[in-house]
């Protein structure tokens, strides 16, 4: 085995580009391990752990590019390094070919685009706060995709934003839809009269996609980042967002999406709704008490889907009974389907394995399943007693959030790169105790562009290997997205159905179906 590498001073690439290049290099024959990273302290320590921190990397700094390859022999290492260089060059020249002017700084960008009004920042956390404050001081709204920004910086940025009438979405804000434009990870939805404020990215995606698929639409969808509704930040942007939607003439209805806010924040939100908000408000605080939402003067929803359906009903002037009827009919269908799927399981097949890429979707699935099959194990379970000892090894009923840090170090988010989940699907399918595999597929910009192409063969392979052992595994999938998304929900649905998966209209329906099957076959603990 040989290890070789190169260091290129002052050559900077963003992390997703680097990870995608590393993935292609890793796929080369004879390559055991590969890293294509900037020379940060954190990256150097990852290389050290992997045993590929070459001496020449030890004094590298953040602006140095490091390429390291471990392979069967030196020639394979050289070829892999060459390949990495080519992939990176092709990325650079693509930008150059289009002859685009790329300013080196925010100041330069403002000179070039003087009417700019929004800055999206996705740098490493330690640089992101400074750039965000620079943008605010120039009177620009900010979407801060980066995480690892300190709470002090977040408060400082949001206070400044509040005082100057500027949005500060994030840190760790993955999704927003402003003036019809999907920002970062967002779906392409109908425009309409429903405004959303969300402290949860995939929660926002699920609600906005349900609304759009129901034929209603979104005016604005403001993300705040999950920490906004915690005690320290005190809901600064959640509250400013609601106020902004109240002032917006295009918004007729407001939907709020979050995990339960801190009680003090909730009190502020409730007081705001009661005293200043004239527009109808629908609220889903996942895992919170719906009564609290009601007391705040909002219409409570039990699931993300329900929040979307209520808002759509209001927008289309339909009565609330219609969506309730839809859900009741759906419930009957789910029970029938569960009955059918329960019949083809062997005596050993008892449990469900949920392999999620969306954190909030995983939370919602656990909340729903808990009412049907009890607590489930996971890497981020609702009940800490059900935390897996080893996140990589499922146990009984298990739901894992593959977007958690422990799975994402050194690789792109599982919504982009399916490699890890595909591997997990095949592993779970070989477990004789598994009856159901539950998957989320999140469409939209930022996500994997060909989810159907990637998942179809994996599902087929997993089903086939289980069948060879006399077992039938039910695949239940939820697809968050719309037909307007670049991937096309209808197309992806067809591809997954072709592989034998059952596609549900929402995450709530998918987690119910999976749980009903498990309940029928006695997998309840």
């Amino acid at each position, binding site marked *: 085995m040989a290890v070789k590498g190169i260091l290129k001073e002052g050559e900077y690439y963003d992390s997703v580009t680097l990870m995608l290049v590393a993935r292609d290099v890793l796929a080369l024959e004879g390559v055991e391990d590969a890293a294509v990273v900037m020379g940060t302290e954190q990256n150097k320590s990852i290389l050290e752990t992997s045993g590929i921190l070459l001496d020449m990397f030890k004094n590298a700094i953040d602006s140095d590019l490091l390429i390291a390859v471990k392979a069967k022999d030196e020639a394979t290492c050289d070829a892999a390094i060459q390949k990495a260089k080519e992939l990176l060059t092709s990325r650079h020249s693509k930008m150059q070919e289009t002859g685009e002017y790329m300013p080196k700084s925010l100041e330069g960008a403002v000179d070039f685009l003087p009417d700019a009004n929004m800055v999206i920042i996705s740098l490493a956390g330690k640089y992101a706060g400074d750039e965000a404050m620079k943008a605010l001081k120039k009177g620009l709204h900010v979407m801060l995709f980066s995480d690892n920004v300190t709470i002090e910086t977040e408060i400082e940025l949001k206070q400044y934003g509040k005082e100057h009438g500027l949005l500060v979405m994030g840190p760790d804000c993955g999704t927003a839809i402003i003036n019809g434009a999907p920002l970062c990870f967002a779906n392409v939805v109908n425009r309409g009269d429903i405004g959303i404020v969300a402290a949860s990215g995939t929660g926002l995606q699920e609600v906005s996609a349900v609304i759009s698929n129901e034929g209603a639409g979104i005016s*604005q969808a403001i993300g705040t980042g999950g920490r906004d509704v915690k005690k320290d930040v005190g809901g600064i942007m959640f509250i400013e967002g609601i106020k902004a939607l109240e002032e917006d003439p295009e918004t007729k209805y407001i939907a709020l999406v979050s995990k339960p806010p801190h009680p003090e924040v909730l009190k502020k939100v409730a007081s705001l709704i009661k005293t200043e908000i004239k527009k109808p408000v629908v609220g889903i605080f996942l895992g919170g008490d719906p009564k609290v939402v009601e007391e705040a003067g909002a219409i409570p929803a039990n699931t993300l889907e329900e929040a979307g359906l209520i808002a759509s009903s209001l927008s289309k002037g339909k009565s609330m009974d219609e969506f309730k009827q839809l859900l009741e009919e759906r419930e009957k269908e789910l029970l029938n389907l569960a009955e059918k799927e329960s019949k083809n399981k062997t005596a050993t097949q008892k449990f469900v394995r949920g392999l999620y890429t969306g954190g909030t979707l995983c939370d919602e699935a656990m909340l729903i399943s808990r009412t049907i099959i009890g607590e489930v194990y996971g890497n981020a379970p609702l009940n800490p007693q059900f935390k897996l000892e080893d996140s990589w090894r499922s146990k009984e009923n298990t739901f894992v959030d593959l977007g958690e840090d422990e799975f994402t170090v050194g690789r792109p988010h599982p919504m982009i790169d399916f490699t890890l989940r595909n591997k997990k699907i095949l592993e779970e399918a070989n477990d004789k105790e598994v009856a159901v595999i539950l998957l989320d597929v999140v469409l939209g910009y930022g996500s994997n562009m060909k989810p159907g192409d990637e998942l179809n063969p994996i599902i087929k392979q997993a089903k086939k290997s289980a069948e060879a052992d006399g077992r039938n595994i039910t695949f239940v999938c939820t697809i968050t997205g719309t037909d307007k998304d670049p991937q096309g929900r209808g197309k992806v649905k067809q591809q997954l159905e072709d592989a034998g998966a059952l596609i549900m209209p929402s995450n709530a329906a998918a987690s119910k179906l999976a749980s009903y099957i498990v309940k029928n076959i006695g997998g309840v603990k």
Partner: protein
Amino acid sequence: MRKISDLFKQELQVINIGLVSFKESLEDVGVKVIQVDWRPSAATDDETRDALQKLLGSK
């Protein structure tokens, strides 16, 4: 005084600092966007960086 809701009446124009894919998806839906060719400054230790910013008056 400026309000957040004023943004909703304007044409969205974006400056993107970081992942290039965010710029590409905005272009795809017809939003004006410019990419900053951002890179970390060679002075990466916090002390030097803070001192530099102070000197340059950017903080």
